């Protein structure tokens, strides 16, 4: 029972692989859609533009949906979170639409991208954020943020020019706007929570 990291040809997966390995998750990079089956949990990373990610991820849509419907925990990270939404101001491509809502640009009042460590405001007690408090900081790098239609899915927010959805938890679908693999010990805790949920 291992954790799959969807390797769909965007960016550098070394860090997330390395972090999962460190916490004993036995990660595997999955390059082919037909191989995305039988995993305890699936991580969808993502860097770069929404459109580029979506174009490259689309061939994984079916096996991802099947895994999600079958109860497999799925964790989207950064743009891997954004692609779960209907669409983004950044690109014309449609998102996966598994969480209703849109991805919009950060306000002009702040430096864009947000790059650095920001703390969370925990909105709901959820398993994926077990052990995490409002005082803990996480590493964010993004120019757009997710606005879910149903605010109930938001588990934590962060303040950056506006209130942004930092973490989402709904059934077996999880997403974080920050990079847990680059957020020190607290980031690793979130990945550990995900792995634990994957093995239940």
């Amino acid at each position, binding site marked *: 029972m291992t954790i799959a990291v969807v390797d769909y040809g965007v960016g550098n997966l070394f860090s997330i692989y390395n972090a999962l390995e460190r916490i004993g998750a036995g990660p595997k990079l999955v390059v082919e859609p037909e191989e995305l089956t039988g995993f305890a949990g699936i991580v969808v990373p993502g860097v770069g533009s929404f459109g580029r990610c979506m174009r490259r991820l689309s061939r994984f849509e079916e096996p991802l949906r099947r895994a999600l419907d079958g109860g497999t925990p799925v964790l989207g990270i950064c743009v891997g979170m954004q692609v779960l939404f209907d669409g983004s101001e950044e690109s014309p491509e449609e998102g996966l639409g598994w969480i209703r809502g849109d991805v919009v640009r950060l306000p002009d009042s702040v430096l864009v991208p947000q*790059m*650095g460590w*920001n703390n969370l405001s925990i909105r709901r007690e959820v398993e994926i954020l077990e052990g995490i408090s409002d005082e803990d900081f996480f590493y964010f790098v993004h120019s757009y943020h997710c606005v879910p239609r149903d605010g109930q899915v938001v588990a934590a927010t962060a303040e950056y020019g506006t209130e942004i959805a930092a973490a989402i938890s709904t059934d077996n679908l999880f997403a974080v706007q920050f990079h847990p693999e680059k*957020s020190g010990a607290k980031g690793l805790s979130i990945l550990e929570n995900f792995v634990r949920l994957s093995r239940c």
Partner: protein
Amino acid sequence: MLARRIIPCLDCDLAVPQGRVVKGIEFKKIRYAGVPWELATRYYEEGADEIVFLDITASSDRRETMFNVIRATARDVFVPLAVGGGIRSVEDARGVFKAGADKVTVNTAALKRPEIISEIAEEYGSQACVVAIDAKRRDDPAEDRITVPTQQGASWFEASFYGGREFSGVDAIAWAMKAEALGAGEILLTSMDRDGTYDGFDIPLTDAVSKRVRIPVIASGGCGNADHILEVFQKTGASAALAASIFHYGEASVGEVKSHLAERGIAVRI
């Protein structure tokens, strides 16, 4: 609230198998500080927000040593890792990313061929492309230079390359703005006049650049104690402060610096 970042910088001499961390004074005299991955891991555990490795040897035959340093560090360090020194092409950057770096810093190569910034940003995202600028104060302002009020009156800043050994003639402040336009995600701004002096950051320089770009500026050069970091955060828009000697030689730990800042109202990650 977005925290200001504290970034220990490890200048690496890769002429020995594991590499060694060194620190020069005003880009010249050299002192040894330790083994790169050991120091990086210690700083990570003390609360460093990011780690920067600069290969000061920067010759291609030592590249494999740098890869080993990055690999050894990335296993234990779960904050962003930026690597620079001798990156001349996207191909060079790829090797560094593959070894486990999250960002590359480019300096000489970008001054010689600015398109490298766009090329790296296109492939790995702007967040992964840091443009390092080594700036030297010049006290002979001219009309085509961006002039800044300094203790010396009015000055401009010249960008240096080849590790401070040569001067490009390029206006460092204008170059920072151009780098942003080309897709740089951050500016690592080093004052050559202050580097290794422990006299504090160059406030006019840091202020001038951070006011003119809309990407994070990392202030570097001259940090001798925690108050210098406090000063650069209070007086400029720098998003991060980079320091070497104060951490290497025991002036203060990363944790002590952060407590000092937090007690004085600066948002830091503790």
